[in-house]
């Protein structure tokens, strides 16, 4: 079973990297770009069969290690 974890800075935390990327996109001619928030993406391979348990376990992993809850929020998806 595979799980995906998306980690992003909380909206209240300034993301200077995302800001620089947004400026670069505008420089490239993508004038419609208003903002970019940069994050992290994890694919976790699991020896598990139950999606509900898997999601609970991966959420715990995200909370304990993959994200720093002080500055980041996360979203967990379990793939069938």
């Amino acid at each position, binding site marked *: 079973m595979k799980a995906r974890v998306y980690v992003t*800075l909380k909206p*209240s*935390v*300034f*993301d*200077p*990297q995302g800001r*620089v990327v947004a400026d670069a996109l505008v420089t490239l001619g993508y004038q419609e770009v208003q903002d970019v928030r940069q994050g992290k993406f994890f694919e976790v391979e699991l020896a598990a069969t139950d999606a509900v348990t898997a999601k609970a376990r991966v959420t715990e992993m995200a909370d304990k*290690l*993959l994200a*720093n809850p*002080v*500055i980041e929020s996360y979203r967990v998806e379990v793939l069938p």
Partner: protein
Amino acid sequence: MKFAVVVFPGSNSDHDAFYAASEVIGEDAALVWHKDTDLQGADVVILPGGFAHGDYLRTGAIARFSPIMSAVKAFADRGGPVLGICNGFQVLLEAGLLPGAMVRNDRIKFVSRLVPVRVEQTDTPFTAACASTQVLHMPVAHGEGNYYADPDTLAEIEAHRQVVFRYSNAAGEVSPASNPNGSLNSIAGICNRQRNVVGLMPHPERATEAQLGSADGRVILASAVKSLASLAGR
């Protein structure tokens, strides 16, 4: 009196800290490998600067799992003085020994220069020999030194006088212009509620002799000696 300097894979200021403690301050010092589990009877623990575990995932995020960190945490819980410098500060934040987190510097740049820092509190083991509001010139060298805490935590830190150092100008005035990285409230260093664990982004161990551009950092380590001596004499 003995300093223990923890060596993580990727530490790069470990020898500077060891040299500062042993040669400049003249105390016993030991380098302690991160896989060790005891602190060799040290009286003071330093988590040095560098890029522990390559700063993989987040700065300091993997270092908190190093075996030595259980001993560091137990030492801190007993009231032992712990100093985290730069990456060591980031490790203390990730380990939950200090509140808050570090994010990328606000202007993206890796900042590497000598900066003035104002001492805000002198009742910690690492500022006991400082004068109140004394300005110290110490180098910073970091890409992620932008201190962040949510508004409630920040208010709590300020209310409990846990901000130990703030970025300032040479006259000790704190303003956005003297803030090199965007840290909230110009925070350069903080302590825990018990005041025995201190973390700061500037490098006192790289500013211990005039040849290095500043000897102001010496007082941080000398403070540890002074504060332990006064504890022993009590």
